[in-house]
């Protein structure tokens, strides 16, 4: 999401948060509409909430609290710094410029290799670009009947060869974390 979209969502969250808080405070009788509203127009919008019957009042309080919590969550998510590293990896840099690819594409290569390996039912991977090369972390779910040491060794080799072939960067580390699928779950998933 680009900066403009994030700013837009932050602004929208703030507006919703403030509106819901004002409705809540007026409904609870903590403030009169005139105390909170910055103008007559806002005061007219808030006044009905000061005269609600008990059932409607309870609903309004509940919905206002839910909206406040949701907008706070949204605000938190948008303001939280994201430090997952650059989305693109430089695979080559020379006098002519840069060749880059998305981190997701490398993950796709790894997941595809895993899905093509006999005995692997599911795979999730992560790629880190370190000074000594690419480090790949792959979590796989194995078929209960698979030979885990053999499958993981095959998978390590396949991932390393495939990524080095496609990306042209040295793969320094391939870590495989395995778990065995429950016997009932024999579905092969990417």
């Amino acid at each position: 999401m680009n900066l403009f979209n994030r700013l837009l969502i932050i602004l929208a969250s703030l507006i919703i948060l403030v509106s819901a808080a004002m409705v809540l405070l007026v409904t609870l009788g903590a403030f009169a509409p005139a105390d909170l509203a910055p103008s007559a127009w806002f005061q007219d919008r808030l006044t009905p909430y000061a005269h609600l019957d008990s059932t409607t009042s309870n609903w309004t309080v509940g919905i206002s609290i839910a909206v406040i919590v949701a907008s706070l969550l949204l605000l938190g998510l948008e303001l939280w710094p994201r430090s997952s590293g650059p989305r693109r990896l430089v695979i080559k840099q020379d006098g002519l410029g840069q060749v880059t690819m998305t981190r997701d594409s490398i993950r796709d290569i790894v997941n595809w290799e895993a899905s093509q390996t006999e005995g692997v039912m599911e795979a999730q991977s992560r790629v880190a670009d370190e000074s000594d090369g690419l480090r790949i972390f792959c979590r796989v779910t194995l078929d209960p009947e698979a030979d885990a040491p053999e499958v993981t060794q095959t998978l390590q080799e396949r991932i390393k060869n495939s990524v080095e072939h496609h990306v042209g960067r040295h793969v320094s580390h391939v870590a495989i974390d395995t778990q065995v699928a429950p016997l009932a779950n024999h579905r092969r998933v990417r």
Partner: protein
Amino acid sequence: MTKGVSVEPLAIAKAVRLAVAAIDGVVVTRGRFAFFGTYGPGEVVPGVVVSRERNQLTLDVHVIAAPSWSLPELAKEVRRVARQVVEQLGAGPISRCDVTIEDLQET
């Protein structure tokens, strides 16, 4: 069209886009997370960003590649084709040609 500087970036982008898209197993794409392209009057060429700084052309080409490609080889081919097109247009020297592989999939 004797001087390179007379060729509009939009025309260069169009020609480069056509030439790169003709490479087997390559699709020129507007971008996966943001829109990349060259803007002109009432028109935009997606996937190829052409800019000119001090009479030097810079290109940024965004592609989706077939999984059979080795990406450094693909980048070399894209650059070769782009350079050839720019030379044919007489658009001046390329100072930089970035290649961004946005995705790998069968094209």
